[in-house]
């Protein structure tokens, strides 16, 4: 896609110092405005939160191996699943791909030297950390037991735990999301390289753009809902608690007005990653480029119109329920379009199965299963039965772990050589990808059955007949945990001992591969000029047919 002269220029030139060796002091990291360094700061912080959230889930799954309450007290159990949800959603999944991969790759993909507002970018990381500190304080001080959904009036009046500290943490972190979103929108509009028109953009950019719109428009509503919980809790202003003249359903409307679109904040970036990986490892342009691109926008728009499907049994009018059901089916169509196009992209490809591709194919499979069970929960009468059961737990883990986390790991492996200048060990990585796929299914598939049988979510003790499926789920979780442990280990190992990566080890299209690995602080020696469409793999393979991947 860039002109051949630009591509040649980079490899011939002795690279300037790369962004990693541009300074070794703590100060040079904490005061950096380089989007690549900020991405690394985010990577470290969200990995820390992922580990904390994962440990909480580990205790929950261990405890659920028996029907009785034996490992921890019930208060502790409730705090653990709340911590798991709050941390994974707000401090891992939402920032994961946008703040790490997006921060690193978006300017490179656009041929820009940085994001539009580098200092704002650094600020958004500090805001995230500040929010994180509040939440960690709440956890250490004694935890919070409302569930990540903070339903009122339990959260606003009845819970005696650290609701406010946690809510303040999430409130603050929301601003980080808004700032990141703003930064991406402006950057994508204003800083594309010459010749990089909208329809030459990589699909990752389309999905990050759609995600940013949701972040900017949705996050303030979450802030408002939590603010109102605070008003009621601290000042006794009646908003949600009927005793004070409030309406408890109002909270659910406000909360899901953000939190349903937030699901798409988590999944859209992963869809973007997969749309990059599949063409690269099929050596061809994706099938239906514009359909994949526009479906991201369709998802972003519809995502704001479906929140009421979380309220089918809550006392919302049954006619409202019908409207939200029909709209929920409409949002399923663009997701289906993506799956069909990805699958069709394999047709007539020249497919190889390096780790990123394994994650991408795993993503398509698991997202398909998560999406199809979305049809179940959007069907009003079926939702009445499965609402608030393990069926829901399984459904959203297929989307948010099977989908979002698989995409994130695929992206981390795909761009790891670019980010670090090192190759990860391919054998271990493939093994872990398969382990994660298997472990994931063993963990969450039994939960679909458990849910339809009627086991409610957030249950510490449960009837004995549910034990077999719970043990299966916990056993699967141990495999999944192991699967996550390997990348954490070998990726760190590769920083020291991994093979040195060439500028473009995958022979991939995309401007990010036209600079050195790792890139210099300024990204490009000279601004690249784009003359071709994205994913011009025929051209690339024609130029260097003998190039090897790893």
């Amino acid at each position, binding site marked *: 896609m860039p002109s051949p002269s630009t591509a040649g220029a980079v490899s011939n030139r002795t690279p300037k110092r790369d962004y990693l060796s541009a300074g070794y002091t703590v100060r040079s990291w904490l005061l950096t405005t380089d989007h690549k360094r900020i991405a690394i700061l985010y990577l470290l912080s969200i990995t820390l939160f992922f580990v904390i959230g994962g440990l909480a889930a580990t205790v929950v799954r261990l405890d659920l191996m028996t029907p009785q309450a034996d490992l921890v007290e019930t*208060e502790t159990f*409730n705090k653990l699943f709340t911590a798991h949800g709050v941390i994974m959603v707000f401090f891992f999944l939402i920032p994961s791909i946008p703040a790490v991969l997006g921060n690193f790759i978006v300017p490179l993909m656009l041929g820009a030297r940085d994001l539009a507002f580098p200092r704002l970018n650094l600020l958004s990381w500090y805001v995230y950390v500040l929010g994180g500190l509040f939440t960690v304080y709440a956890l250490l001080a004694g935890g919070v*037991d409302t569930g990540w*959904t903070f*339903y009122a*009036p*339990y959260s606003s009046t*009845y*819970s005696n735990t650290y609701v406010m500290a946690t809510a303040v943490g999430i409130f603050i972190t929301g601003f980080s999301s808004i700032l990141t979103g703003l930064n991406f929108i402006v950057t994508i509009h204003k800083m594309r390289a010459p010749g990089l028109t909208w329809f030459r953009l990589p699909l990752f950019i389309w999905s990050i753009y759609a995600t940013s719109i949701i972040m900017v428009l949705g996050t303030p509503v979450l802030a408002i809902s939590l603010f109102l919980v605070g008003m009621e809790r601290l000042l006794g202003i009646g908003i949600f*608690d*009927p*005793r004070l003249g409030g309406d408890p359903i109002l909270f659910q409307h406000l909360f899901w007005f953000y939190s349903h679109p937030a699901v798409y904040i988590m999944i859209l970036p992963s869809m973007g990653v997969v749309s990059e990986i599949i063409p690269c490892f099929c050596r*061809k342009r994706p*099938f239906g*480029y514009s*359909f994949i691109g526009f479906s991201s926008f369709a998802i972003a728009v519809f995502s704001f119109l479906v929140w009421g499907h979380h309220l089918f*049994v809550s*006392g919302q009018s*049954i006619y409202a329920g*019908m409207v939200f*059901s*029909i709209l929920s*089916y409409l949002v399923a*169509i663009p997701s*289906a*379009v993506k*799956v*069909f196009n990805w*699958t*069709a992209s*394999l*047709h*007539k*490809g*020249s*497919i*190889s*199965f390096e780790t990123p591709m394994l994650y991408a194919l795993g993503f398509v*499979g698991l997202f*398909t*299963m998560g999406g*199809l069970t979305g*049809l*179940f929960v*959007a*069907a*009003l*009468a*079926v939702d*009445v*039965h499965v609402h*608030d059961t393990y069926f829901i737990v399984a459904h959203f883990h297929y989307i948010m772990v099977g989908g979002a986390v698989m995409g994130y790991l695929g992206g981390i492996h795909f761009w790891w050589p670019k980010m670090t200048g090192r190759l990860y060990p391919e054998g271990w990585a493939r093994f872990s990808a398969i382990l994660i796929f298997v472990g994931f299914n063993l963990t969450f598939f039994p939960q679909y059955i458990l849910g339809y*049988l*009627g086991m*409610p979510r*957030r*249950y510490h*003790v449960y009837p004995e*007949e549910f034990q*077999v499926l719970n043990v299966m789920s916990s056993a699967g979780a141990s495999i999944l945990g192991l699967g996550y442990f390997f990348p954490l280990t070998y990726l760190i190992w590769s920083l020291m001992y991994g093979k040195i990566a060439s500028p473009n080890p995958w022979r991939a299209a995309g401007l990010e591969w036209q600079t050195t690995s790792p890139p210099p602080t300024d990204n490009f020696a000279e601004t690249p000029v784009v003359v071709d469409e994205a994913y011009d793999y025929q051209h690339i393979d024609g130029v260097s047919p003998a190039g090897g991947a790893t």
Partner: protein
Amino acid sequence: MIDDGFRLLPEQASTHAPRVDLLYFFLLGLAVFFTVLIAALIIYFSIKYRSSNRRVDRTPGSGHALVLEIAWMVIPFLISMTIFGWGATLYFSAFRPPAGAMEVRVVAKQWMWKFQHPNGRREINTLHAPLGQPVKLTMISEDVIHSLFVPAFRVKRDVLPGSYATCWFEATRTGKFHLFCAEYCGTNHSRMTGCVVVMEPAEYEAWLGGGLANESPAVAGKRLFEELRCASCHMPEADPVRGPPLQNVYGHEVILKGGPTVTADENYLRESILRPGAKIVQGYEPIMPSFDGQVDEEQLIQLISYIKSLATP
């Protein structure tokens, strides 16, 4: 005993259950079909177009095929609209109790379920119900949101503080079935469980007659109505008539000050007792004091039952 063998589907013990399961099986069929389709295509293409296979035809097509793109938008759309219609029809019937259903009052609180039968018999965490007869549950919470869930009936409904929610079922099998709280309600949420005991109608009648001397909610309501001196304003014989008479109010339209109308259902009556100023009936002055704090949820239910008994359906 609750049947606790290992199974893949919950028991079907209501008229609603097999209908929901039929839709579930349809969805399951669809999900399996599309999962297998996508998986098979991925595996087939992965093998056929693996990079080491050099003999396969890779002449690029146009890169997109409009007919294909339209097909895989329109077909999922049509399928999903079918599911929508089917699910909505069942949903509608699940939340519309049939006329003449036996009414059981439910009060939920952290962490127990309190039930009261039409003749006044009360029970906690266990709900006895007759076979083959529609039972309507009118439910309210004393504190946070709870949710009444009977998997064997495929019935669930959130129980809110501050307003009545209803659901109904008609049991088709005798036996004992799980009853869960499905909405997280605090520490002992997972212990807010119980069971529904479905009995032959004759057995149920016998059971209703047992227990302590019972007073039906309507009778208790009448007594309370007198104790609270409601009649001094609200009965036609009151002089002067300061409040709207309550005969034939329940279930009928009431004209409010300024012209709007409202159907006098249970939530309207409840609001009028606790916050009389919220909706003033045309032709009357807002002089009624609030009874908020003076009557608890169960007494409110009794008063409303009494007012309901004054209306001819």
